[in-house]
């Protein structure tokens, strides 16, 4: 009997088999490498370029670079792959995922591989601010790769039009005072230009840390087992944020969408925006006005949380593979490469000597704004990171959003968030 439909299946099956086949020879060591793309630009091309160069310099090693989406997507992908028995060898994941990855028993620390003195010195060659989220329990679990901080972008033209001097507000009081001058309403009383937008969707906690650090208070302990959301200084910082909309009326009410904040800035809907330094190239290319980049305003202290991703080594690798993986990680974080990566993407080059390379020096000379994030590093703190990190940050995020929409008072919101976080963390103490 003939089954006409079967004829169609053959080429399909063939294509599927082709899609399954890899083109790696038996002798090659193949490293699979998951990475996120969190900023615009031809990131995949750059990474593929790096992989190709590494392969050329190191014949016998193949790098399979897999572009996995946002940090969130990449973590999901890496963990699902790990749980189904086929983990990647290396992944660039958020520095804050460290505890989660340790708890899932998915990663190995770098220490076992760092035998020589040069190796040990290598670990010390990165900015300490970035290493804070990379080390715990005396071990190094991640190596910084694409790291960032929050910075403040400000519209110089808007400042001039408002009669303000040509500098960004340096502290909270100045921010409010400048803000009142920058907020413009039209004839019918509707606001046409806001002074500031601090985004509150996606990961409001990260921007919130810009406020808590300025208020000289920490949100967690370094072991990731305790949170301090309901400390008075934290509540004060939240109150300040809420007041920007409610009392001072210089920020839009409700939650502010992270994804549309840069566009708001370009459209002159806001004169100041807080966002990742990873947006630097985007703003440079698209802002139709002169703009400045500044450190976040100070209060009782100054600073921002670091952000971004580290290299992690996954378990279930043979020793040979692990040594190769380390080679790749080292290669990707040489000063020249770190500088190249920083220039191409807007991330902060992760080691001081990268900033001393000729390419980087030239870049900073042409574009001084690029160095602001680096200079802020001495005030930078670790990004919020605990065990069961996603859950705990969700509790905090929900609380922040509740306060910003006015559903709860800052005090109540933080109390509830702290309660929830304590409940989640009590099994990790």
């Amino acid at each position, binding site marked *: 009997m003939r089954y006409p439909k079967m004829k169609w299946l053959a080429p399909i099956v063939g294509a599927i088999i082709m899609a399954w086949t890899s083109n790696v020879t038996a002798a090659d060591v193949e490293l699979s490498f998951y990475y996120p793309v969190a900023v615009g630009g031809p990131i995949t091309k750059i990474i593929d370029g790096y992989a190709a160069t590494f392969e050329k310099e190191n014949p016998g090693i193949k790098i399979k670079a897999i572009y996995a989406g946002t940090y969130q997507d990449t973590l999901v992908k890496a963990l699902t792959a790990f749980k189904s028995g086929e983990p990647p060898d290396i992944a660039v994941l958020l520095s804050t995922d460290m505890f989660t990855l340790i708890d899932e028993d998915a990663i190995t620390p770098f220490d076992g591989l760092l035998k020589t003195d040069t190796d040990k010195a290598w670990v010390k060659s990165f900015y300490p601010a970035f290493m804070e989220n990379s080390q715990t329990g005396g071990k190094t679990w991640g190596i910084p790769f694409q790291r960032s901080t929050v910075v403040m972008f400000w519209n110089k033209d808007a400042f001039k039009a408002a009669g303000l001097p040509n500098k960004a507000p340096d502290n909270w009081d100045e921010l409010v005072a400048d803000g009142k001058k920058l907020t413009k309403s039209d004839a019918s009383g509707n606001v046409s230009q806001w002074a500031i937008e601090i985004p509150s969707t996606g990961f409001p906690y990260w921007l919130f840390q810009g406020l808590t650090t300025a208020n000289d208070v920490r949100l967690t302990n370094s072991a990731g087992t305790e949170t301090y959301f309901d400390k008075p200084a934290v509540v004060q910082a939240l109150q300040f944020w809420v007041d920007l909309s409610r009392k001072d009326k210089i920020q*839009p009410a409700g*939650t502010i969408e992270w994804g549309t904040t840069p566009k708001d800035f370009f459209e002159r809907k806001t004169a100041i925006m807080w966002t990742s330094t990873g947006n630097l190239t985007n703003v440079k290319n698209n802002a139709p006005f002169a703009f400045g980049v500044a450190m976040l305003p100070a209060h009782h202290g100054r600073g921002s949380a670091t952000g971004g991703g580290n290299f992690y080594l996954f378990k279930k690798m043979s020793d040979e593979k692990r040594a190769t993986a380390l080679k790749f990680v080292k290669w990707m974080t040489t000063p020249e490469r770190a500088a190249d990566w920083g220039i191409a993407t807007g991330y902060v080059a992760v080691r001081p000597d990268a900033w001393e390379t000729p390419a980087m020096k030239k870049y900073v000379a042409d574009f001084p704004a690029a160095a602001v994030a680096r200079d802020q590093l001495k005030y930078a703190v670790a990004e919020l990171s605990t065990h069961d990190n996603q859950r705990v940050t969700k509790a905090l995020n929900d609380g922040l*959003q509740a306060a910003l*929409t006015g559903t709860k008072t800052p005090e109540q919101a933080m109390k509830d968030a702290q309660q929830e976080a304590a409940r989640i963390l009590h099994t990790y103490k």
Partner: protein
Amino acid sequence: MTQSSGQIAHGIDGGATKPLPHATSTGVTPLARPSGTRFRMTAHIHGWLLLLPSTVLLVTFTHFPAVTTIIDSFFSTPKGRRSAVFIGLDNYQAMLDDSVFWRALGNNIVYAASVVPLTIALALLMAIWINGKIAGRPFLRLSFFTPTVLPMIAVANIWLFFYSPGYGLLDQVFGLFGFASHNWLGNEHTALACLIVVAIWKDAGFFMIFYLAALQQMSPQLAEAAALEGASRWYFFRRITFPLLMPTTLFVLVNSIINTFRLIDHVVVMTRGGPDNTTALLLFYIYEVGFKFWDTAYAATLTVVLLALLAVLAIGQFVFLDRRIHYQ
């Protein structure tokens, strides 16, 4: 289709076991005719063989997971080297204490209760318009149906633009009339409504086609008879058209409800459940718990609730609505 569902409610599919009045004279006995055990055995074997591939897949990917979901909800989540441990009703207790769960459940019910009636009403209205004498019907039909062929994940980004405060389309249009800009998606009162609008927009055109097909099947004699009696359009619709469309309405109702629980792509793109869980829907929360927090046992518990909800709705529809359906 609804014909069969009625028959399901009454149990047996008639016709298969009745001997036909004209018995064959050539001696070839068609299958499904119970004349002798040998043929009955063949029918049974053939029947199950034909059914086998589908059965295997259905059991593996629908029935088996449904059962393991229920089982897993009584265990803890395996983490690292710790394997799952039987913990009885602990997960359910945690769920009852979880305010986000109640939020998600409440949101989903409000969401479904808003989307379904409005979608059905619009689909019917669109079908009636297209079935009527309005000018430009091909364009209308095209416009109404286009949202169906676009992926939700893609159009959600466009709707994100529409809802953006200030320069978004909605605010630009409202601005022309002098209204202030509004933070549609960032405001706990309007965020869910915005998603409801998107869902209605997406599905109404699809269901319109079913209504259109049904309307065109209606005999024109009915209309003529009613015209002779002097019935008004509204009367005709209410007493004749709508009841005759009940089978279609049931079909549309079932699918619309399923979609409100199944389709969460727009939540992922537009609000991610925020602000403060005002747009969290049940399946979205399950996805977060299962694939962001990796708490698979709790995700199973939540899924049990979702399954129970769907089961109740299914039974409710077939039992309750089935009574009121007129068949031609």
